[in-house]
């Protein structure tokens, strides 16, 4: 399991109160019975943790399924400019 996946599973479990063992990459947030207000909180926690901006209803990204979230995060993190070392 990638570290992004670990973190995303943690966030989903914490924000929605779902048992972490029930979360699979194949599931959609809808399958997991996650309400829309919990879903936006999950997206916020992901954004805040990885310091990225998750797409909003962009047809090129899947943010409905757990795997889609992981792929999106990994793509956005890889695209981020690496921070210069602190002076």
């Amino acid at each position, binding site marked *: 399991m990638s570290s992004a996946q670990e973190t995303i599973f943690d966030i989903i479990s914490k924000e929605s109160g779902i048992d972490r063992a029930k979360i699979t990459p194949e599931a959609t947030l809808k399958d997991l019975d996650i*309400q*829309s*207000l919990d879903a*936006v909180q999950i*997206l*916020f926690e992901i954004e805040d943790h990885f310091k990225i*901006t998750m797409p*909003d*209803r962009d047809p090129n990204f899947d943010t409905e399924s757990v795997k889609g979230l992981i792929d999106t995060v990994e793509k956005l993190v890889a695209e981020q400019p690496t921070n210069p070392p602190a002076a």
Partner: protein
Amino acid sequence: MHRVVITGMGAVTPLGNSAPATWKSLCEGRSAIAPITTLPREALRFGIAAEVRDFDPLAHFEEKRLILLDRVSQLALVAAREAIAQSGVDFSHEDLGENTAVVIGTGVGGEQTHDAASRRLYGENNPRLHPLTIVRLMANAPACQISIEHALRGPAFATVSACASSNHAIAQAFHMVRSGVADAAVTGGTESCITLGTMKAWEAMRVLADDTCRPFCKQRRGLVLGEGAAVFVLETLENAQRRGAVILAEITGAGMSADAGDIVYPSEAVAAKAMQRALADAGLAPENIDYINAHGTGTPANDPTETRAIRRTFGAHADALAVSSTKSMHGHALGAAGAIELVAVIGALRDGVIPPTVNFVDADPECDLDYVPNTAREMRARAALSNSFAFGGLNAVLALRGSD
């Protein structure tokens, strides 16, 4: 119990800086939704809103007085002046001001002041805030300022219920004039919420549209924020007739309800209950209503739920109703929404023109009423409902009819 009529209306909206200008734009189906001009666009995800344009505070207020007035109060005061002038009431002369109520709804109050004070304190590390910060930002400031300017000494307060604030305000004013608690009322709503803080908070909820506001259609992508104010003069029918005043419309009833359920997801049954209560309060049968100005935010959740709530309330008559969401033109002005929409309802009742739901592309099978898509319709409306449903599940519906 008195009959309650509206004899004055005023508005400052993204569609025009007076009630007639706003109504003209509504009839033309003109949308005021455009790129935001007052905030740094790069800080915003989508950067569109319906802003009040060409509003010069110095054209309306002395510089010294402006120190006291957040934009939310400026808009309300200008709208109130227009409404009171149109009504022809002289509050000082007729001693009417002694027991005239002022009830003004707002969702967030002096948000511009709040935002600026926060920026100074946290952004600029400046520990000194302006001494009038509190009196500018308090949510009751617009009501107070109207009461002070016109020497209105009856019950005066603000109502705060997010997107239903205006309708709750107008309902309270209506009840006070109907029962005789107040002789007359100045009521409506105001909002000036297009600040960086508010926009970012709405963005985070992921309910804002990135293109425009398209209520009830398949391509709808969310709501678009607006701002503005609309204010009305309410008085008893007897008083209006005695003065020979022009009656714009009669408020016949108000219905309110609370979902007591989800904080954001609306309840069809309880929204319907508010409409049913408004009809019952007005003594109107569903068949008497010709037009509904819908809450119609353009979000995935509101529009089908509101559609079903209308069907539940009106049964077979639902198919005979004209239902439009003017938010497609003036945006969602939150606490001012119901008041701005009342300008549309009064226009429809008076002029026999139903303002459209613009930006409408394709019908959504889940939204299957007549939404008067894209173009205004000439149609006589005898009576109308105006719906406002707020976050928190707070619903307020007004019932009106044209003057005889």
